């Protein structure tokens, strides 16, 4: 009985992580980038890389606070909670950084449309929200849906 309870507890704790849906990293179709490393994603999210190599200004678009897509990106890429991320933004601004916070939108469709409109935009979408108006890129050469892909939604 104890063994069963242990297995059930372990399964309850780990299954949501294993079942979490991959989030596709998308950029504007004019962006020549096809792959980013996780370290690059960290820099983009933290405002430490203000522009792409093409010279286009980086605009990061995330879901609104409290949404699993947003918390998943913050946790998967930065290892941060929403609070940690807000503290980081406040501190970065105080230290003179003018990169600004990521834009927030309420739906995947809205994010897709903004990425489609802004040449330097980058966003994170469910696979069902991705269409040919934006370009899906790989992370560390792994595409969403493949084994080893690390950007997942969370709570």
């Amino acid at each position, binding site marked *: 009985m104890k063994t069963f309870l242990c297995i059930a507890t372990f399964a309850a704790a780990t299954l949501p992580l294993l079942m979490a849906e991959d989030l596709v990293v998308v950029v504007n179709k004019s962006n020549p980038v096809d792959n980013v490393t996780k*370290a690059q994603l*960290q820099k983009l999210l933290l405002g430490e*890389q*203000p*522009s792409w190599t093409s010279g*286009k*200004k980086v*605009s990061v678009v995330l*879901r*609104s*606070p*409290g*949404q699993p897509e947003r918390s998943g990106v913050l946790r998967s890429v930065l*290892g*941060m909670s929403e*609070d*940690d991320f*807000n*503290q980081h933004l*406040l*501190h970065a*601004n*105080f*230290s*003179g*950084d*003018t990169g*600004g916070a990521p*834009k*927030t*939108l*309420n*739906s995947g*469709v*809205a994010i897709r*449309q*903004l990425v489609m*409109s*802004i*040449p*330097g*935009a980058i966003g994170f979408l469910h696979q069902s929200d991705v269409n040919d108006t934006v370009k899906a890129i790989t992370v560390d050469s792994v595409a969403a849906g493949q084994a080893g892909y690390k950007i997942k939604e969370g709570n």
Partner: protein
Amino acid sequence: MHRGIRGHNVSRCLILLPFLATGMGAQQTQPLTPAASAAVSAQGNDVTARLLKKIEEMEISQKRMQDEIDTLKGGRLMAPPAVPLPAVAQAPPAEPIQAEVETPADSHTLGPVEFRGFSDFDYGRAWFEKQPPTGLVGSPHSFNVGDFDLFTNTRISEHWSVLGEVLVTSDFSNEFSVEMDRLLFSYKPSEYFNFGFGKFNTALGYYPAAFNRARYFQTATSRPIMYGDEDNGGILPVHSIGLTSTGKIPSGVLGLHWIAELLNGRASAHPDVPVQNFVDEGNGKAVNFALYAKPLGWRGFQTGFSVYHDTLHPEGLPTIGENVYTAHAVYVGAKLEFLNEASIVRHTLKGTSEVYRSLTGYSQLSYAFGKLRPFVRYDYQNVPSSEPLFVNIGRMNGPSFGINRHVSNYVVLKLQYGRLNQLGHPTANDLQAQLAFAF
């Protein structure tokens, strides 16, 4: 156009609904078993629900398109919805955000100015802070309001920004005063070259740039002795007025950055007003060069050094050449914080062989256990007793330790005990409590 699209969607729904109702009604006229009837009813509800959902999705999509059109027209994307959001979109509403659409208008548009505030309320005060010339009359163990720090960092166009920080501050004199701590206009055309001018923290090390005056961000209740203000017993020229430029150096994984500054330097003839603004004691300017590395593979680690040179003209003394050499190695991770910095201030009296070297530095270690962060710091500063400019400072050193806990998102409670040994003075024991907040 917006209303037209919405009206089109609604009219399409109105057309569909009678057909749906008719279809459902037609099915209900057939003789059906109870189970089949329930199945048909469920199917009808399902279709209705899917249609409603589709309508709602179309409305959301249409609203976003309208927002984008507004953005492209006015260079702004504002969140207030033109139509009430349907039930499926009851996530927290998007905050008003400034569009970064790269339109020509963007580079000529003043953005909204946002001010932040930082302050703290304390019991007790660090003993090493400057005391009145007549000495401290009474006990330092009092309730006290710390700096009231009003701050803005605002982009005024694509490449220009302004950073301003005003302090209302008090000290052991019990008097409040207003002080312009930073006012920096910056031009940032690329990550390899940024240029700024105004009043700012001299690029001497890590701590002033990272924390400046906001105690909210600092792990301990106050800055290290090393970075005391010039008018508060500090020996480093931590504030300057002049020009500063910085940028990245293409260096791969090393993550090198450079800083070069041309500054008024500090006053030596009038040490009570150490930061020179309208009047510079000499025509010569101070210069400061710094180089630091933030390795790409070691996020949170930073190390670097700086060399500062100025020529001082104190009253009744020969001209003094001042060199300040500073080095730092810090690691600031999500849990571990390990800060190490040191400076040597070298004063050379021109025309003589007299050289005075003062050493100041600290080491601070902290580790977060959830929201609780215990910390320990050791300060050390040694100024030669015969030093011509830094009079009656001498040697001071000692440990301090405490805890820092986030009691809410923007409120931090700190408790700290410190012990300060000062040559020629009795050892001071210092207990402080601080509630620091951002707003």
